[in-house]
């Protein structure tokens, strides 16, 4: 093992971490507003990847444009799914909302995955590169697609943070997550934000799917692991903390790749990567049950 290899793994870890973060902020956003964990999030990521693929291959749109088209399509699809499947969550008469959310999103995940097998076929598909070629820096070699995915991911996360902190709609979204009752008192229709949060979260997952497609190629079950990762990241980041889930995404990406780099038996390292991610989660939870960056609870009065 050389230092170049370690640096490559660090760079790969950063790119993967950014992709993880893009998926996980959506789960966090949805959790903080709807109070459910969306276990179908990885499958929206999968659909986002396929959508971009078909927009590129059938309509001839350039890859970056296709990513934005895919975000818009999945945004709309997510709002339709939310309206169809999740409205019972907002009815006070519904008992066992947590269980309802769990079962419905799990069911949706299996449904989307199986529809994807039927419609897209079981074989991996690979869209064209965003930018073909590689960059070399000494012994460090990294593909342009990875750099591009990392860069666009950072821009999208930046745009989300700007939206959340600098626009009145983002602040209202934050307000609804803090108290639906108080939001109603100032005249905010909190129900509308259920759709907004679900749509934005899904659009970010779709972007992640479109960005990762030329790197790892598309498969109907590509959302299974990101579902688990997103859940790990959301807990690591402190449930409901957008900033926390971004940092936790990067941390998990780096931790997994460095583990792979330093694992004594390189032939087996990749197989243990996910187990290592869960190990990190368990160790963190033992010492910080509220997650790494959980919001300090400010109480009224």
């Amino acid at each position, binding site marked *: 093992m050389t230092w170049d290899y370690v640096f490559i793994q660090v760079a790969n870890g950063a790119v993967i971490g950014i992709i993880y973060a893009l998926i996980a902020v959506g789960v966090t956003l949805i959790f903080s507003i709807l109070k459910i964990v969306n276990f179908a999030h990885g499958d929206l990521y999968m659909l986002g990847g396929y959508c971009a693929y078909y927009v590129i291959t059938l309509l001839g749109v350039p890859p970056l444009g296709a990513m934005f088209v895919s975000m818009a399509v999945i945004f709309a699809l997510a709002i339709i799914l939310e309206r169809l499947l999740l409205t019972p969550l907002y009815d006070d008469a519904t008992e066992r909302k947590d269980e309802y959310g769990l079962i419905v999103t799990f069911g949706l995940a299996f449904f989307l995955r199986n529809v994807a097998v039927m419609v897209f076929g079981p074989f991996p598909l690979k869209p064209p590169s965003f930018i073909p070629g590689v960059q070399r820096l000494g012994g460090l070699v990294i593909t342009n697609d990875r750099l591009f995915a990392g860069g666009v991911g950072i821009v999208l996360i930046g745009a989300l943070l700007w939206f959340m902190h600098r626009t009145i709609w983002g602040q209202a979204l*934050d307000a609804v997550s803090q108290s639906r*009752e*108080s*939001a*109603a*008192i*100032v*005249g905010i229709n909190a129900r509308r934000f259920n759709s907004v949060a679900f749509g934005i979260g899904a659009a970010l997952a779709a972007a992640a799917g479109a960005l990762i497609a030329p790197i790892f190629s598309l498969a109907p079950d590509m959302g299974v692991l990101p579902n688990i990762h997103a859940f790990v990241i959301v807990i690591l980041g402190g449930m409901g903390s957008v900033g926390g889930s971004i940092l936790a995404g990067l941390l998990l990406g780096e931790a997994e790749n460095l583990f792979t780099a330093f694992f004594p038996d390189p032939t087996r390292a990749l197989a243990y990567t996910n187990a290592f991610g869960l190990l990190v989660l368990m160790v963190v939870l033992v010492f910080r049950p509220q997650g790494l960056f959980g919001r300090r609870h*400010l109480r009224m*009065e």
Partner: protein
Amino acid sequence: MATASAAPAPSPWLVARDLVAGYLPGIDILRGVSVEAARGQVRCVLGPNGTGKSTLLKALFGFLDLRQGEIRLGGEAASATSPHKLGPPRLEPHEMGRQGVAYLPQRPSLFPHLSVEVNLRLGAWRYRGDRKRVEELVARACEQFPVLAERRRQAAGTLSGGQQRQLEIARSLMQDPVLFLIDEPTAGIEPRVTGMIYDLIKSLAADGKAILLVDQNIKRALEIADYVYVMRTGTVLSQGSRAEFGGDTEALVARWLYASGDTRQE
């Protein structure tokens, strides 16, 4: 404050008739309550714990569905938007601000992780498209409440109890409401600043606002009240202007709150 001060209007702005409401099926907390509120007046709802005073305010603001009864605001019925709900048709809570109703629940309704300034801006949510107007409203609030202006970048959750109440009132004024439904404004607040909060409520009434105040702090509430309702087990046991009750609060407490239930009067 900004609105021109109006003489107490002859007709009440809020008229609620025979409200019946409750949380659990078959159990009514409010059992036919009628209250009114008029511009320029502080009307105070008193009564022992568990008589439904807070429930009354929740029902008036729409956080609790009515099983029976009618609410009229400014002469208009607070009418239907959700026909599928049981009970009389009515507005959703988030629509009440537009109708001129502000609600200050017992636990301050601020967004603790957002700054004082963002809390104020969110108070002007209905004007969100009109940047100039929102800026003017924020500037007005900062002028009225210098203590908030000093802390405008601070998270609302880090303010003291008294400051939080001021922020809540400042935020509710962003929509220029007519009626304030206020629940226990000084619960859990250091005694040193309670006087300031009652003065603030009194000044709202002097500006022509209608106040309906629910309070356990009978003595202080009666000092600013123009009209008093005494509630008991979900009904209004007795009501009258403060003059009718006489200035002697201790006698009032003894007579109306702790007398046996058969002292019901019109």
